[in-house]
């Protein structure tokens, strides 16, 4: 299985978009090598703007570009994009419903060695709470490209979360992304695992382990966090009666919260939220950290198993 970082897919998609559309501009805050916007910068230097280490100003500058009729793609690390620049995004982008595409890299703990200061585990929550904002989390390189191109068609602010580390490519090119839609990527009947981002792959592998233990797990790729696919969540809640959510993000405010908000209103079933449990990240290799924070295949399988046995007691 190929392994490609979603940030690399973003860099390639930007160049493809740049070739096709002359109204795309790209802004970065001194991290273009890391976010991979440097590929666009080399190809279209006149449409690339380095704003220096000044993320707040980068966001409002992007709003200005949008007012002039351009579609700005804005990139930096997820924590700086959504944390440092949160209020400028709220005021100058979302409040006026300005057409700015924020594509952040280095989300989650798989940033690795840089440690907790750079590992954003809050960004989904921070962006999801802002009215008018769309929030998308691609599961692999293929979906990243599809999302990056799809958001061109949305007239409004979007946040896309990408990662630093190489992750397995799980979809082929026929995969279609639709805003507001999740996708069942594995059928099952005992429990529904709803995952997002790199945890979709881990959840698919966890479902294989569970199958050997006689547990049939359905797996959903919920890449569209906002708008979220209410229908699909209700459907899998009805079919399985138990939901586990998995995300490389805080258990507060992210996918788990979004899913709970839906089923709490309409189809109350037990929900287990797997994510970072109210703490900051630490330094280490990405794959070590995935295990340390129990977001790996084996840990997910164990958690699902114990969740089911608790409910069935």
């Amino acid at each position, binding site marked *: 299985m190929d392994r490609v970082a979603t940030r690399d897919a973003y860099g390639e998609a930007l160049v493809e978009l740049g070739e096709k559309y002359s109204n795309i*501009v790209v802004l970065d805050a001194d991290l273009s090598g890391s976010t991979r916007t440097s590929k666009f910068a080399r190809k279209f230097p*006149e*449409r690339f*703007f380095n*704003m*220096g280490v*000044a993320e*707040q*100003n980068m*966001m*409002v*500058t*992007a*709003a*200005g*570009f*949008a*007012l*002039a*009729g*351009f579609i*700005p793609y804005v990139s930096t690390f997820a924590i700086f994009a959504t944390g440092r620049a949160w*209020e*400028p995004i709220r*005021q*100058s982008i979302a*409040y*006026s*419903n*300005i057409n700015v595409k924020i594509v952040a890299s280095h989300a989650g703990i798989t940033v690795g060695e840089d440690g907790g200061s750079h590992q954003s585990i809050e960004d989904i929550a921070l962006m999801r709470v802002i009215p008018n904002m769309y929030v998308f989390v691609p599961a692999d390189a293929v979906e990243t490209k599809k999302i990056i191109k799809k958001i061109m068609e949305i007239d409004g602010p979007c946040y896309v979360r990408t990662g630093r580390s190489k992750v397995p490519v799980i979809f082929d090119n026929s995969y279609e992304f639709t805003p507001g839609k999740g996708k069942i990527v594995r059928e099952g009947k005992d429990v529904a695992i709803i995952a997002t981002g790199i945890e979709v792959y881990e959840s698919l592998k966890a479902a294989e382990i569970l199958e050997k233990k006689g547990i049939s797990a359905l797996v959903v790729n919920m890449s569209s966090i906002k708008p979220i696919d209410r229908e699909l969540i209700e459907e899998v809640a009805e079919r399985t009666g138990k939901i586990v959510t998995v995300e490389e993000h805080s258990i507060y405010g992210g996918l788990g919260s979004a899913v709970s908000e839906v089923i709490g209103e309409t189809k109350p079933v037990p929900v287990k939220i797997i994510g970072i449990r109210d703490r900051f990240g630490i330094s280490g290799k990405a794959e070590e950290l995935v295990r340390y924070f129990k977001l790996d295949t084996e840990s997910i399988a164990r958690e699902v198993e114990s969740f089911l046995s608790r409910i069935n007691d």
Partner: protein
Amino acid sequence: MEIENPLPVDISRQELINLKQKAITIRKKIVKMLYLAGSGHTGGSLSIVEILVSLYFKVMKYDPRNPQWEERDRLILSKGHAAPALYAVLSEAGFFSEEDLWTLRKLGSHLQGHPDSKATPGVEISTGSLGQGLGIANGLALGLKLKKSSSRVYVILGDGEMQEGMVWEAAMASGHYRLDNLCAILDNNNLQIDGKVSDIMSIYPIEDKLRAFGWNVLTIDGHDFESILSALKIAEKTKGKPTFIVAKTVKGKGVSIFENKVKYHGVAPNEEEYRIAMEELKQQEEELRKYG
């Protein structure tokens, strides 16, 4: 406060009187709007009247019947709390009816407490949270240059607002990208909510700071039409760098009881104050008619 090398402004005596009359009309509308709303920012709305009147009735290109006209010049009111002044001018310019002004801040009004571009024709982008307008103006100016448009971008900042870090991130970028299609105007009335700008957190010397950031800087009397128009003309002719106009103004200008009073930063006139203010503005009108 005199510009070192002023550019002569081509304006007749009658035209000047008309602008002065416009300023009084706008002030009356601002005071009435705020009185009817029962809340809002009196001082900082009154201090930018001559600046806005110069821009909207002498300098800027726009079409009130087509607010999104591609070739228009753009104004960003970074100090969004001066919304009443902007609304009064936009209404006077024909973007919406005068009647709308009296709905300011009320439930269902398209005139929100701070500028909301989704609600009000002629407002380019929502502002209100300070420090963000200059960066927005930079993006607009960069985008217009990229499109080879001849439109110009104006942004009005407050002096308390200059304490926001984002303003300096933006000021650095305007200089770096040599945005000569951009002109920033500082409403330098030296008062902010808690007191004098120089006491709360001094921004001075403001001119030296901005020159060091790559700006062409001019200091003027922000209530004198000829100075304002001359400075705006210099800004238009200056190539290779953005122009920053430090407009020395008086908070609450035009109504003695509000002038230089910190209290009226965020307080609207009560009935008595409204009556006194309208009387004074009426007198100014009569004097203008008599003596020009």
